[in-house]
Each structure stands twice: as structure tokens, then as C-alpha cells.
């Protein structure tokens, strides 16, 4: 029973995902799944930010850079022609292990590139290293300084991406191959695989949510919360604040990179705008809109708003909408709009129903503890 209660939100999420797909199919609007899938991948980045900013209290304005590092590494390795290789033992070994695979390039010739799985491993390793290199010194800074340091890092990555010819400069990389995951699943933008890919993205998001929920409810989560509330006190309690902050930062960077990898293989391309500072700001806006610390609030807001943005609902006011959301939410409802809304709804329900309903009437967001940002 307790197991069921703990996992109701996850089940609700799964049911909602299936219902959405069925409704869209019935309405003949399955094309919407493409943008929905992309929005689900973006939600991964925002969830990572939710861990760092909402739970550990550290601002990051550089998460688009990690998304780009993941996406670009994967795109470069799987499209760049490394051949013809000399034939020493290691090269043949790599080929036999299917780390390097031959495929036909744009002009019909054969090209030798890294296989998607190997590229993912390299992308995540690279992100791991970069996140440590940046996180270690940056997380010693506080407030404005940390924000500026991460922003500066993001800008460096985006300038490097735009300025490097091998990474396609301002055009980005296109023609990224699909990624056979195994078990008959393939990450690909092909129309016939649209539904399958939607469920891959849902599954990945669900896994991430379970992982983060468990992390937040563990000793680590409580340590992060303590750092968030008062770092000096946490330190005095014997919490290795530097290590915990770095760990949370690296984990969220890896999530962003993973999202980047999936996104790139799904859309078959990546452009430098994915690395831009505006994207980083947008991720922070989405986290703020979801209430920063509430996993479910953040998921809901980032999927919905990103979906609307990708479908072009905001027209040429796209960035302005996200900027305005930031200002309005932070100045009017710093805990995010969902919590006050939930309380208001519950209040209304309690007045109409018997008060005993209160125990089951909690909105999903409440199970993560009160969202806090300070």
C-alpha cells in the first residue's frame, strides 16, 4: 500500500503519457508527438537544474553548454569521417568491436565514423570531466559570482562551437545517424518511429524522475537541502558541502548532456543556438516556473511551455515570453505558481467535501516536500 502511495505520481505520469498519445492518435494529430518528444528531452535538462538550483541552491547559467557538449560530441563523432585508417591491430580491433562503423556518406562513398553507443560514452565522459573542471572552482563562489562564472563558461562554449569549422560553425551539424538502442528500439526522427520515440523519451524522463526522487529523499538530498538553507551550518554539521555541491552539479550536467545526445540523434542535427546563453536562461526560467524544487511542477511546466514554444505559439515573442515569465513568477510567486494554485484548489475542495478527504487530496507536488528557494 505504501509502495503504491509513494509511486502514485509516477503511475499518473505514465497513464497521462499513454492517454496523451491515444488522444492525439484519435484526433489525428500524431504529428504533435514530435515536438512533445523534444519538449520531454528539454525537461531532462530542467530537472537537472532543479536538483542544482532548487535543492542545492546553486545557480547555473551554463546548462545549455552541457546540453551542447553532449549533443555536439555525439554528432561530431558519428558524422565525422575518420577513415581511411591505417591498419594496425587497434584500428581493426575498434572496427571489430563496432566502435567504428562504416556507413555511406552524403555522396555515396563510404565513411568511417564512431558508432552512436561509443559516441554517447565519450560525450558523457567529456561532460563529466568538463563539469568537474568548471564545477570545482566555480562552486566555491556564491550568488552573483557563481551566476557570472557559469554564464561565462556557457558563453565560452557557445563561442567555440560557433567559431569551429569542424563543428559546422554557425550551421551546426546535420545528418546525424539514428541510434539503435537495442531491444528493437531506435532513437530516430523517422515518421514511422514517432510513437516509439515518444515512449523512449517518456521512459527516459520517468527513469530520471525516479532517480531524482530517490536521491532527494536520501541522505544526499537532505544534505543538499541543508546546504541550500544554510551552508555554514551544514558544514558545521559535518556535511562535506563542497563535495555534495560538486556531485549535484556534475549529475545535472550529465543529465543535460544525455538530453543533448538523445535530442541530437532524434532530430538528426544540432545547431549552435542550443549552446546559447538564452537557452541557459530559458532552462532557469522553466525551473523557476515549476517552483524550482518541485520535481513534478518543474516537469509539468517545462514540458508544457517548451511544447508551446516549439509549436510556435509565442511567435516572434518567444524569448520575451520566457523573460516575462521569469520576472512575473519571481516577483509575484517566488515559490512557483503551482503550489499556491494547488493550495487554493485544496482549500476549495476541503470546503465542499468532508474534511477526512484531506489525506488523499494532496496534489502530486506536495510529495516532494515544500518547494523552497532562497
Amino acid at each position, binding site marked *: 500500500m505504501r509502495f503504491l502511495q509513494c509511486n502514485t505520481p509516477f503511475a499518473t505520469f505514465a497513464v497521462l503519457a499513454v492517454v496523451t498519445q491515444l488522444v492525439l492518435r484519435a484526433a489525428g494529430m500524431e504529428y504533435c508527438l514530435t515536438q512533445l518528444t523534444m519538449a520531454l528531452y528539454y525537461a531532462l535538462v530542467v530537472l537537472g537544474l532543479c536538483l542544482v538550483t532548487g535543492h542545492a541552491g546553486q545557480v547555473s547559467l551554463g546548462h545549455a553548454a552541457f546540453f551542447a557538449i553532449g549533443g555536439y560530441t555525439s554528432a561530431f563523432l558519428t558524422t565525422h569521417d575518420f577513415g581511411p585508417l591505417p591498419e594496425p591491430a587497434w584500428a581493426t580491433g575498434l572496427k571489430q568491436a563496432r566502435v567504428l562503423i562504416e556507413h555511406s556518406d552524403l555522396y555515396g562513398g563510404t565513411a568511417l565514423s564512431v558508432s552512436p553507443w561509443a559516441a554517447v560514452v565519450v560525450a558523457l565522459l567529456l561532460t563529466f570531466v568538463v563539469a568537474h573542471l568548471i564545477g570545482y572552482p566555480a562552486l566555491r*563562489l556564491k550568488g552573483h559570482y557563481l551566476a557570472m562564472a557559469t554564464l*561565462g*563558461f556557457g558563453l565560452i562554449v557557445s563561442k567555440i562551437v560557433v*567559431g569551429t569549422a569542424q563543428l559546422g560553425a554557425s550551421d551546426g551539424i546535420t545528418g546525424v545517424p539514428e541510434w539503435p538502442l537495442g531491444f528493437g528500439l531506435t532513437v530516430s526522427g523517422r515518421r514511422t518511429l514517432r510513437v516509439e520515440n515518444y515512449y523512449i523519451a517518456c521512459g527516459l524522463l520517468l527513469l530520471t524522475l525516479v532517480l531524482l526522487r530517490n536521491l532527494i529523499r536520501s541522505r544526499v538530498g537532505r544534505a543538499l537541502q541543508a546546504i541550500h538553507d544554510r551552508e555554514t551550518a551544514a558544514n558545521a554539521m559535518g556535511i562535506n558541502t563542497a563535495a555534495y555541491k560538486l556531485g549535484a552539479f556534475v549529475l545535472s550536467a550529465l543529465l543535460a548532456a544525455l538530453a543533448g545526445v538523445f535530442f541530437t540523434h532524434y532530430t538528426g542535427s544540432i545547431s549552435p543556438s542550443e549552446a546559447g546563453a538564452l537557452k541557459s536562461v530559458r532552462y532557469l526560467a522553466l525551473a523557476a516556473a515549476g517552483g524550482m524544487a518541485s520535481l513534478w511542477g518543474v516537469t509539468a511546466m517545462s514540458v508544457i511551455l517548451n511544447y508551446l514554444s516549439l509549436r510556435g505559439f509565442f511567435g516572434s515573442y518567444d524569448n*520575451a515570453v520566457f523573460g516575462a515569465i521569469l520576472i512575473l513568477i519571481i*516577483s509575484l510567486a517566488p515559490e512557483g505558481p503551482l503550489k499556491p494554485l494547488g493550495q487554493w484548489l485544496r482549500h476549495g475542495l476541503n470546503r465542499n467535501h468532508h474534511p477526512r478527504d484531506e489525506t488523499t487530496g494532496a496534489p502530486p507536488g506536495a510529495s516532494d516536500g515544500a518547494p523552497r528557494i532562497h
Partner: protein
Amino acid sequence: MALQYLLSGITKGSIYAVVAIGFNLIYSATGVLNFAQGEFVMLGGMVAIMLAQLGLPLVVAVGAAVIVVSAVGCLLEITFFRKLRHHSILHMIIITIGLSIVIQEIALHIWDEKVRSLPYFTGNEVSSLKFFGAAISPQVLWVLGAIAVSVVLLHIFLRYTLQGRAMRACASNPEAAMLAGINIPNMRTLSFGLSAALGGLAGCVISPITMTHYEMGAPLAIKGFAAAILGGLGNPMGGVIGGLTVGILEAFAVSRLPAAFNDVAAFVVLLLVLFVRPHGLLGRPGGEAVREH
């Protein structure tokens, strides 16, 4: 050749210095690091260009632009920061970033995405003066002159006038300042107005050289921040030294690196300074300023 780079570095650096001074003024009076600082420079250029195109004489257009931008600065303070005094540092950062984006988008919708510029104040694109073998445009002299004069005026204001002293008092100890009868909220508004006016002026004088574009604000803000950190955050005149250093470094980096990596040098310097000497080259390592206020 080195002199040529040095001169271009000083020109760019003087703009960064103005942005850095703007950061410092607002930061020391309110504790807010205004990420929208670069937008003031952009707005100054844009408004002056619009007025000049309407046929107003250049001096009037520039003067009006400075006043308009200054008013925008005051308005931002009154609308957003006066009410949100008790919000945390994270909130403040997010709000100023949001403001920066919204101002950019408004500018995009008012003035479209074309690159535009004011006419040269004297001479034109090709006129140049010889200076120890290096060619400089007369506009560079305008930039340096205008900025030097305004920095000196600001210094005099802060040091010798009652208002300026009140502002400094408010920065060093708000409670004591309040007890001495200083109206702190108004001082904070004034600091926004002043720093916006400075930014607006810089946006006007630099416009013929670097052109004005709705997206120019954000990179300026970052480099200005790098300059402010270099000079020690909260120290208005430290920003001058910081700004010139960043500008000169950047100008020499251009001669060594491919053009696309132009800005990377400045950002790397920013990161290095933040990581190694976050209290700045001139600041004292008290650690206090690095901690949250």
C-alpha cells in the same frame, strides 16, 4: 602596430569601464548585480539614432537619449527592486536576467534587427588623425573624451557633493545612513538612474564605431562585469582600471587568435579572475564581498 592595438583596446576598454562603473554604482547602493546593465548601452544608442533620424541635431539627440535611458533605469528600480528588497540574491539575479531579455525583445520589436549607427560626430569613416604613426578616428577621441569627462564628474559627484556623499554612505552602511536621515530608497533609484545615464552616453558615443544592434547588450554586460570584478566589485573607480585591462587584453587577443574566438579571451580572463582572485586585482581578500549579502 602595437600602438594601434593599444588604442583600439583603450577605446573598447573605456566602454567596458563605463559598464563596470554602472555595475559598481548599483551594486554598492543596492546589493543587486544588474545583468541588464548592457541593455542601457544598447538603448542609449538606439534612442539617439531614432531621434537623429527624426532630424534633431546630434547634441540634442544624444542628450535626450541619455535622459530617456536614465528615466528607464529609475523606472526599473521603482517598479521591480523597490518592492522586492527582501528577496534573495537568486531572485534578484533571475529578475535582472529576465529584464535584460525583455528589454532586448522590446528593442527588437521597436527597432527591428538591423545594425545601425549614429553619424560620426566629426569627420566620417575615412577621416583619421596620425598619432605616433598610428591612425585613429576622431570618434575615438570623442569616446575617450566623453567617458573621461563623465568619470571625472562622477568622481567629483561622489566625493564632494552632499548627494554623492549620501550615496556613498548608503553603500557603506545603509542603517547608519538611514539614521542620519538619508532617504535610502531614493538613493537607490538615483544609483540606477546614474548608471543608466552613463550607459546611455556610452551607447551614443560608441555607436559610430561599433554600430548599435539589439543584441549588443549581453556581451557588453559580461565584459563589463569581468572589468568590475578585476577592479574589485563595489569600487566605482576600480572599474576604470578593470575595463581598460579587459579592453587591451581583448585587442591583443584579436591579433593572435582567429576572429571567431574574439570574445573567448575576455571570458577566459573573467573565469580565471573569478577562480583565482574573486576579490579583484585591487580589492582586499576579505572574502566578505564574495559571500552573499
